[in-house]
């Protein structure tokens, strides 16, 4: 709903003013949820990427500022409808259905409504990656997470145990979610006592992927390809993380209380996820050339 009479700078300034006011009200309303999320992510390395999410969102917004400015309008009344729907979800997941995670997810619906009512459909479309980052930054409940990861964790543990067992002089045995190893250098358990040891950092890998992929405005076709590759990349990075952890424990640090294998494997796997997502989102193959050539002048203008 663009106004033809308003100059562009006035239109943008008005949209930004509306957005800032509504976001202020949003923070006021959700301050208990936001402070709970901030305090909980500080306690778990699994969700600590949530602390980086605001910076990533700000960077994405900065990179897209020109496109956002062009697409901002006087807003859409549908935003109010989305906002009310979000409030309804929030209320219903407080009572009668107590689903803490879905109550937090309602915030994203409300944020989408705010962007829509303040800035319009075009800005909302460009803001979807930022909303996706918010979604990935909201911690999932322990019991839901434990249930969701059963299959990937089982397969990852089996794959890592097999890989470690093929190394010369290393024997491995799986017991539950533990990989017991024995080698000439010693014996031990990979990632002893670490919760969800077989599947960790999946949301962090996904956050890296979203940030890398959406740092530029890309064609829909490429986004579809990246989306198809995202889950295999994330699962492979998780496998790599656990394998690194096992290798470090087998060959370098046999002390099960040492945090070094966990930290090194975490950094290496996050870096791997960054590299893989950069490759998938920027490698130029024939399939992409036409589309990317089409949008390159536009993308260059945004940068």
């Amino acid at each position, binding site marked *: 709903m663009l106004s033809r009479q308003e100059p562009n700078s006035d239109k943008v300034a008005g949209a930004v003013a509306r957005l800032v*006011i509504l976001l202020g009200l949003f923070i006021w309303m959700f301050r208990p949820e936001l402070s709970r999320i901030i305090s909980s992510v500080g306690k778990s390395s699994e969700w600590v990427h949530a602390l980086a999410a605001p910076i990533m969102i700000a960077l994405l917004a900065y990179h897209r500022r020109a496109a956002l400015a062009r697409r901002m309008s006087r807003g*859409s009344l549908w935003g109010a409808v989305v906002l009310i729907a979000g409030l309804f979800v929030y209320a219903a997941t407080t*009572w009668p259905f107590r689903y803490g995670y879905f109550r937090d997810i309602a915030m994203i619906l409300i944020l989408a409504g705010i962007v829509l009512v303040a800035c319009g459909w075009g800005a909302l479309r460009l803001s979807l990656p930022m909303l996706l980052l918010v979604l990935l930054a909201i911690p999932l409940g322990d019991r839901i997470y434990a249930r969701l990861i*059963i299959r990937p964790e089982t397969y990852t543990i089996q794959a890592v145990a097999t890989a470690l067992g093929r190394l010369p002089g290393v024997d491995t045995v799986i017991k*539950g979610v533990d990989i017991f190893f024995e080698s000439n250098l010693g014996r031990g358990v990979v990632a002893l006592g670490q919760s969800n040891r077989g599947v960790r950092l999946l949301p962090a890998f996904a956050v890296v992927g979203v940030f890398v992929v959406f740092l530029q405005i890309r064609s829909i076709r490429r986004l579809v390809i990246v989306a198809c590759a995202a889950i295999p990349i994330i699962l492979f990075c998780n496998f790599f993380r656990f394998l690194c952890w096992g290798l470090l424990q087998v060959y370098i640090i046999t002390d099960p209380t040492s945090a070094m294998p966990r930290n090194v494997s975490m950094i290496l796997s996050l870096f791997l996820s960054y590299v893989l997502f950069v490759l998938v989102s920027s490698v130029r193959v024939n399939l992409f050339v036409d589309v990317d050539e089409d949008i390159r002048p536009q993308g260059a203008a945004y940068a």
Partner: protein
Amino acid sequence: MKTFDLRGLLMPKDRNSVSTLRPLLSAGFLFSAAVLSLAAVALRPGVEALSEHYTKEPITVRKPLSEFDVSRLPSFRSGWTRSDIPPDDIETDEYAIIRLSAEQPAQMPKEVVLFVTYYSDPESKVPHTPDVCYRQGGAVLKSMKNTTIAIPGLAQQSKVTARLLLFRQRGYNQVVIFSFFADGQFRNSREQVRWTIGKPGNRHVYFSKIETVASYPTDGSPVPAINLCKKLFAEAVSILVSEHFPTKEQIKR
């Protein structure tokens, strides 16, 4: 590159205050701001008041689970010996953990376990399911899927969908069949239970986890153990529903 200037909004050079505020006077924005303000002030207290007003109450079982009568199980009333297993961290006082051991040494599987827990505190968390907690106990999950079990003697819902899990333990394998019974309805996942007990309307709330477990050799077929677990599950559920758990009429407001 200059893209927009907020100063134009805040300090216009040649405009009056109405044109300055025009971007903030759109109906959608004003309505949304009003709704958000109202929600910030009243939504949380309102919903919490509703929650408190409609808090469901606990309800006791009609007959304690400790009095579960194995002799009422048609397939297990003879040829099987009952022994009770002490509980381990089940967060309820209402339970039955019964091991049935075959008296015939040649019978396979040699034993089967019935594990029933009952929760009625509205604040109770739905417990972890075996697919999660058996793995923490050292079992390796081989497969998990739904299975349909016919329950004799039930007026409604005579076929129940339960979860069938196969585990590899150290030196043997294990079959686990489980399902939940919440507010008079069978549910086979924690999320379904939470949804069922959250529905407003009833005065009381309860849920129960019903689980049967049997072992089979590492190199053997799981079919006999699965059939035995299904048989015990079906016969036990029939008794639990008809004699132990509260009826649908009892939990209504």
